[in-house]
C-alpha cells in the first residue's frame, strides 16, 4: 500500500434536490490503488459507483475532494485513463477499424494514415476481431462490439482502464470469454484497472482488491476485501480454491444484508482508514468464518448451498 498510483482523497458528490435540499450520493470517500492492480467495486444500484468512475475518468467533477493519479491531481479527462463503457459507445457510422483508429489518431495527432491503421490493427488483432475490421457496429454481436470497445480503450496505451459494468449486457458465455481476455490483457500489459460490476463471480475472478460500497444515498466505502486467490487463477478451477466460498459468501452477505445495515451498525467507521479484510489470514473475525466454510465444504456438503 506504499505505492499509491491512484488516490481518491475525500471526494463527495452532492446534487441539489427538491426544495433546496441536497442529496448526498456519497461523502468523504477515500480509496487508493497500486500500479498494476485490478480493482472491482461492488454495491447496489444508486450507491454512486458510476459517479466514482466518472470522476476518475474526468467526465464528472467531485463536489469536494481530489483525485490523484500518478502523483498529479486530475482535472478533466485524459488519454491516460481509458474508459470502457457499459453500452460500448461505438460510433455507429464508423467501421471497427474506424472506431479504433479514431482513438489512435486522437492520441497521436501527427501520425499518418498508414501508421494509425497499422496501430489500430494490432489492437483489433489482440481482441480477436481480425477479419471484421470493415464491419460496422450494427453488423456485430454484443460481445464483438464490446471487444471493439476494449480494443479502442487499449489502443491509446492508457495508464489505467476504467470499466463501467462492461459485460453486464452480454450473455453468460460471451461474458466468460471476454473476462478471460481482459484478464489476460491486463496481466500481460500490467494495466491498472478499475471495474464496476454487479457480478460477484466476475469480481472474484478478475480483481486483486474488491471495494464494497453500502447503499446510497450517503453511501460509504465499507470494506476493502483482498482477494486471497492466486494471481494465476483459472476460470475452471476457481471454485476449488479453499478460500473461494469464504470470499464469495462474505461478499454476498454484504450485498444481501450488511450493505443496508452497515451505516447503522458500525460505529466509528473511519472513511480514511477503511478496514482491509484478508480472508483466510489468521487474527481476523472473517478468517474464522472462512475456515468454517471451508470445513463444511471439505466434508462433502454441496458448496453451492451456502451461497
Amino acid at each position, binding site marked *: 500500500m506504499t505505492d499509491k498510483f491512484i488516490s481518491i482523497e475525500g471526494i463527495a458528490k452532492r446534487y441539489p434536490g427538491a426544495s433546496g435540499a441536497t442529496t448526498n450520493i456519497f461523502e468523504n470517500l477515500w480509496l487508493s490503488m497500486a500500479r498494476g492492480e485490478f480493482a472491482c467495486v461492488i454495491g447496489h444500484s444508486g450507491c454512486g459507483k458510476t459517479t466514482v468512475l466518472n470522476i476518475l475518468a474526468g467526465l464528472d467533477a467531485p463536489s469536494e475532494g481530489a483525485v490523484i493519479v500518478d502523483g498529479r491531481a486530475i482535472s478533466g479527462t485524459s488519454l491516460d485513463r481509458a474508459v470502457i*463503457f457499459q453500452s460500448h459507445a461505438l*460510433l455507429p457510422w464508423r467501421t471497427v477499424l474506424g472506431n479504433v483508429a479514431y482513438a489512435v489518431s486522437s492520441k497521436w495527432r501527427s501520425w499518418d494514415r498508414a501508421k494509425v491503421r497499422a496501430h489500430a490493427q494490432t489492437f483489433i488483432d489482440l481482441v480477436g476481431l481480425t477479419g471484421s475490421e470493415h464491419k460496422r457496429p450494427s453488423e456485430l454481436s454484443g460481445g464483438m462490439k464490446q471487444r471493439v470497445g476494449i480494443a479502442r480503450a487499449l489502443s491509446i496505451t492508457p495508464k489505467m482502464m476504467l470499466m463501467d459494468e462492461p459485460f453486464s449486457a452480454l450473455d453468460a458465455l460471451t461474458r466468460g470469454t471476454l473476462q478471460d481476455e481482459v484478464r489476460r490483457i491486463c496481466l500481460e500489459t500490467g494495466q491498472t484497472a478499475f471495474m464496476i460490476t454487479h457480478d460477484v463471480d466476475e469480481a472474484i475472478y478478475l480483481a486483486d482488491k474488491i471495494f464494497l460500497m453500502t447503499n446510497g444515498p450517503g453511501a460509504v466505502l465499507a470494506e476493502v476485501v483482498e482477494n486471497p486467490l492466486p494471481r494465476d487463477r483459472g476460470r475452471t478451477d476457481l471454485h476449488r480454491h479453499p478460500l473461494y466460498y469464504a470470499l464469495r459468501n462474505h461478499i454476498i452477505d454484504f450485498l444481501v444484508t450488511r450493505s443496508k445495515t452497515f451505516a447503522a451498525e458500525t460505529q466509528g467507521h473511519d472513511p480514511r482508514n477503511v478496514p482491509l479484510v484478508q480472508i483466510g489470514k489468521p487474527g481476523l473475525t472473517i478468517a474464522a468464518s472462512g475456515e468454517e466454510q471451508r470445513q463444511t465444504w471439505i466434508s462433502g456438503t454441496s458448496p453451492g448451498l451456502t451461497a
Partner: protein
Amino acid sequence: MTSSLRLRAGLVSIALLAAFLGVWHLATRSTGATTTMSPEYAKLMGLTATQGKSAMPGPLDVGAKLWEHLKRPFYDNGPNDKGLGIQLAYSIARVGTGYLLAVLVAIPLGFLIGMSPLLSKALDPFIQVLKPISPLAWMPLALYTIKDSSISAIFVIFICSIWPMLLNTVFGVASVRKEWINVARTLEVSTVRRAFTVILPAAAPTILTGMRISIGIAWLVIVAAEMLVGGTGIGYFVWNEWNNLSITNVIIAILLIGIVGMLLDQILARFTRMVTFPE
C-alpha cells in the same frame, strides 16, 4: 412475395389512374349540339356553347397540350409567352438560391445553438415568434427594403426554409447521445474536431430530415410568391394562364409542380439515406 406485392400495387395504381381519367373524360365530354346557330356565330361562341362541352378541359385536351409543351419546353416568345421548361427553371433557380442561403445560415447557427444551452434559451423566444409567420407576410417588407421583386422572392424562400432546418439542427445537435460525446471527451478531442467527427455525423440524419421538410415548404411557397411578384416562374405561369382563361395550361402547371416537388423530395430523401447509420 414482395415483388408480387409491388406488382399488385402497381396494377391497382394503374387501374385507379385509368378510372380517374375515364371519369374525367366522361364528365367533360361534349354532349352534342344544343342549339342551332349560324356557323359563323358558332365559330365565335366556341365548343362550350355549340357542342355542350364542359368549360373544363378533358384529359385528351390536357394530354395534347402537354405534348405540345414537351416538344418545345424552352421557347421564348417574349415576356408573357415562354416555354414551361424556362418557367420551371426560373422557379427552381429561385428555390435553389434561397434554400442554399438558408442552409448556409441555418446549419452553422443551429450547431451553435444546439451546443450552447445559453444561446438556446436566449434565442428560443425569437425563433418561436418568427417561425409561425407566413413567409408571404414578409413580402411587402422585402419589396420595400430590397426593392427588387426577384430578390424578394428569393428572400421569401430563404425565410420559409430556414426554420425547419434550424430547429432540426438544434434538436439533432442537442440530442447527440451523451456516451458518444463522452467517448470524444475521454479521447481529449478538441471542440472543433468533436463537432465534425462526432456531432455532425450523429446529427446528420436529423439535419437532413429538416432539410427535406424545408425543400417541400420552399417549393410550396415559390408558387405563391411568384404569383405575387410576377414576371417569370411556374407560379407566375399559373396566374398568367388563369388570366388567359387557359384551364388546360393551369392543369398542366399543377401536374408539373407536383412532379418537380416529388423529385426535389426524392433527392433529399436519397441524401438522408446516405447519412443515416444503422444502430
